[in-house]
């Protein structure tokens, strides 16, 4: 694609000036006259029957304006993503530590706290179900009277797995386990709600899905959806954890009940206790292969603990299912994935969404196979890697499958893999070097059986400046910058001429949620469709004014060009003239995802995805065998996400994702005992600081995606997905002992070494 002025070029992020001057307003920064403080009363037991809930004393306290229980909800007392199975305010049974019993609005924090303290609750604690494997056993106590503990059992069959294992010269059989992970976005969840004179309930909230929020708020208020308006201010991170609604409904109910604005912000502790987490998944993985390492069969059993409410749990396990075979040719496959209900914290969407867990098992297993057969880990991956158009066990043919090998080869070069083992192997007597690889396919978008579309509005003013109204949330990834770049490029105006109007369900169109690395692709394509009629108006006008056929004209840099030469007409001239001639300068763009013909077979897995980004990561680590400490020295990442629309933004997505992946690999784990999270602060749940950052070498291959905007693919999740796998492989390589459980804490490394030594001694 020749001569792009804005797309693919350095551009600072939309809103960056507001961010560095402190003018950017996040939800907690909003205030209105007469605003009340909202607070919530959470259950004291993770599984209990509520015998008594008496709020009368609380209601009579000075400064307390409203105390709501389940009896005070005008509409439905339930919400959630896949099923509306989570109570807003518990009526009978609390099923996890984050269940809410009452919502309070008061004049100030002290009065709100006094109200919470004055609410009288009697509980009958119920036996909890905290182990998903126990929960699956026949005769296990049931969490729901009308539901099995196994909410969903996904089955994926491809070829003949028994025949595949018979054909195998070697079978590797291991079990891998990932942990419960916290998003730790820096801005805890919050919302501000107020009721306008016309009865419209306005809710301001940092969220990922404003239109879905609107639907759920309206459902609980028992008002039509167009009487609820969700406005999305700046958001302090989300990473999947703000996809499901958090406190928006409570603030809306309290504002409706009191007629006054209400602000409710979760404390850090409440945030950690309540919102969804990354699923802990246990994966038993059997691989059959010939002596030369070529795969003959893979069998997988995955168990995901999703907590008591389904949320996005079954979708995450779906993605575990569709990514468990990695970017490989697998002739025979059999997979069962269980979504299991327990009284543990709810697990749902988090960046990497099942792909991280699936690839951890897949990529560790590939290394175990390589080790057993004495084949180089990269070589065994190349022997089994996809080619263009190859079908994977989900029954989908991946047109860009060849980019798997391209990424792998490039990463090998960039990391100096050839020289592996030649470094000073023991820089000190207690230190060991290790190298590990993780190579992945990263499905982006919602998959071929789910809605996946976006609307967007574009207006050009008579001076040639542009307004883009998007309902798609940008929580830091740079989506709005990309939308501005695409619009500017297509209309031939400078980036500074484009203004983005942030999501507001009254002013912008539904673009779906910002999840699954979908928005640059979907909203990006919608923007390109939206600008087309305006572009046509400008070019028609230009043709009239100059007498030059429009095929020879181009709009660039706010001016008109003919065959590379700048003419005297500016965008302002063209826009003004077009308006005088009644030509369209405002437009709506809509894009619904289309897949290439024939990529899905008749027996394709129901929720298979069709678009993939490929990426390879190589980790170099140093392990202290006396303390078990792991130092990640370098991460080399090569990603083929198609055309890179914004180089800095893309690099930031990969680096930031990779560092989050380091946290997942090495240090992060929510410790839950009997349904209660024990580490509820950022001092006891540690995330990577500036001193935990390895060197990163990042490279993009840019073979374009024909359907993507300017050839782009989704890549917001890519960086995190392969990091834990690459690091775990590197540590296993360094110490010569197989590690199969996250996180790789010093204790875990030390114990593995100790067990290995004992094993050798016997």
């Amino acid at each position, binding site marked *: 694609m020749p001569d792009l002025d804005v797309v693919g070029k350095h551009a600072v*992020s939309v809103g960056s000036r507001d961010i560095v001057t402190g003018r950017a307003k996040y939800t907690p920064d909003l205030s209105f006259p007469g605003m009340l403080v909202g607070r919530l009363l959470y259950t004291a037991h993770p599984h209990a029957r509520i015998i008594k809930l008496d709020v009368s004393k609380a209601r009579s306290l000075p400064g307390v304006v409203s105390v709501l229980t389940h009896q005070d909800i005008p509409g439905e007392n339930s919400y959630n993503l896949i099923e509306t199975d989570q109570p807003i305010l518990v009526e009978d049974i609390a099923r996890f530590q984050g269940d809410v019993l009452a919502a309070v609005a008061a004049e100030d924090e002290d009065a709100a706290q006094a109200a919470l303290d004055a609410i009288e609750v009697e509980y009958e604690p119920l036996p909890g179900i905290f182990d998903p494997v126990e929960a699956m056993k026949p005769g296990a106590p049931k969490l729901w009277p009308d539901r099995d503990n196994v909410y969903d059992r996904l089955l994926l069959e491809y070829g003949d797995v028994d025949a595949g294992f018979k054909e195998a010269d070697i079978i590797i059989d291991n079990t891998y386990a990932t942990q419960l992970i916290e998003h730790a976005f820096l801005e805890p969840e919050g919302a501000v709600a107020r009721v306008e004179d016309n009865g419209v309930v306005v809710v301001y909230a940092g969220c990922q899905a404003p239109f879905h929020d609107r639907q759920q708020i309206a459902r609980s208020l028992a008002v039509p959806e167009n009487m609820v308006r969700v406005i999305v201010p700046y958001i302090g991170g989300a990473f999947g954890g703000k996809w499901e609604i958090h406190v928006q409904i409570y603030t809306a109910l309290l504002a409706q009940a009191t007629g006054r604005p209400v602000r409710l912000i979760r404390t850090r502790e409440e945030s950690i206790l309540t919102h969804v987490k990354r699923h802990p998944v246990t994966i038993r993985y059997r691989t059959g292969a010939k002596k030369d390492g070529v795969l003959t069969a893979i069998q997988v059993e995955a168990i995901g603990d999703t907590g008591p409410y389904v949320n996005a749990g079954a979708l995450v396990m779906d993605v575990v299912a569709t990514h468990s075979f990695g970017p490989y040719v697998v002739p025979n496959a059999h997979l069962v994935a269980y979504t299991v209900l327990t009284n543990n914290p709810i697990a749902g969407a988090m960046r990497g969404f099942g792909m991280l867990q699936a690839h951890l098992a897949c990529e560790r297993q590939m290394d175990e196979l390589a080790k057993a057969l004495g084949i180089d880990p990269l070589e065994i991956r190349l022997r089994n890697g996809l080619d263009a158009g190859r079908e994977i066990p989900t029954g989908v043919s991946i047109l860009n499958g060849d980019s798997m090998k391209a990424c792998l080869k490039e990463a090998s070069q960039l990391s100096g893999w050839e020289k592996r083992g030649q470094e000073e192997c023991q820089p000190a007597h207690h230190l060991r070097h290790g190298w590990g690889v993780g190579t992945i396919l990263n499905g982006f978008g919602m998959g071929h059986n789910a809605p996946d579309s976006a609307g967007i509005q574009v207006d050009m003013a008579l001076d040639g400046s542009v307004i883009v109204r998007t309902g798609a949330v940008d929580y830091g990834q740079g989506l709005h910058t990309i939308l501005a770049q695409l619009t500017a490029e297509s209309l031939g105006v400078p980036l500074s001429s484009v203004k983005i109007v942030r999501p507001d369900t009254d002013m912008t169109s539904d673009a779906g949620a910002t999840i699954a690395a979908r928005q640059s692709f979907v909203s990006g394509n919608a923007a390109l469709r939206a600008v087309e009629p305006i572009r046509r108006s400008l070019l028609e006008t230009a043709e009239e004014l100059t007498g030059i056929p429009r095929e020879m004209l181009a709009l660039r840099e706010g001016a008109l060009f003919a065959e590379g030469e700048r003419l005297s007409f500016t965008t302002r001239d063209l826009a003004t003239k077009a308006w005088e001639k009644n030509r369209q300068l405002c437009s709506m763009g809509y894009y619904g995802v289309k897949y290439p013909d024939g990529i899905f077979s008749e027996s394709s897995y129901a929720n298979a995805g069709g678009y993939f980004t490929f990426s390879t990561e190589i980790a170099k680590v140093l392990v202290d065998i006396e303390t078990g400490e792991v130092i990640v020295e370098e991460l080399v990442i090569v990603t083929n996400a198609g055309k890179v629309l914004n180089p800095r933004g893309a690099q930031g997505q990969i680096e930031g994702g990779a560092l989050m992946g380091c946290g997942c690999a090495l240090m992060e784990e929510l410790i839950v005992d009997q349904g209660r999270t024990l580490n509820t602060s950022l001092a006891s749940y540690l995330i990577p600081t*500036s001193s935990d950052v390895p060197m990163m070498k990042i490279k993009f291959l840019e073979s374009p995606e024909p359907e993507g905007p300017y050839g782009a693919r989704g890549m917001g999740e890519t960086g995190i997905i392969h990091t834990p796998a690459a690091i775990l492989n590197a540590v296993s390589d360094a110490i010569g002992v197989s590690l199969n459980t996250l996180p790789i804490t010093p204790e875990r490394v030390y114990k593995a070494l100790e067990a290995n030594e004992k094993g050798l001694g016997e």
Partner: protein
Amino acid sequence: MGEIEVRLTINGKTKVLKTKPARTLLSVLHDDLKLTSVKEGCGQGDCGTCIVIMDELAVNSCLVLAGQADGKEIITLEGLAQNGDLHPLQQHFIEQWAFQCGYCTPGMLMSCYALLLHNPDPDIEEIREAIEGNLCRCTNYRGVIEAVLKAAADLNSISQSKRRKNA
């Protein structure tokens, strides 16, 4: 509960205000004075989003009681740009994509500002150390480090040319 009187110099202006003694400097700045660059991320001194400069030191304002700040000189992010001109740190934060969501940015900028106050020519390790108490969940901190290095270079060349002029 009685209120106490607190005198603060904030971004060069002196303010006298009345507050309950148990309130934090964070809550006084954010809620009473509407200096909303001062963000709460944890309220426990773990994340650094509320960092401001108090008498030339970077402090977590959630850990400072309003009364402890009496008579002190406070700088918040609102005080960094002069007459609409961005401070070099702010400029380079933009250019280097030193943030994504931006929620940690005010505290991060104040930590970097405090570093340069005391160490005008920091190396990478000193920058890393200075921002260790500022959690960022979006980036890998590389942009911040690069921005500080560039801002330090800018500020040093400005002060050198000033010195030359004075000489």
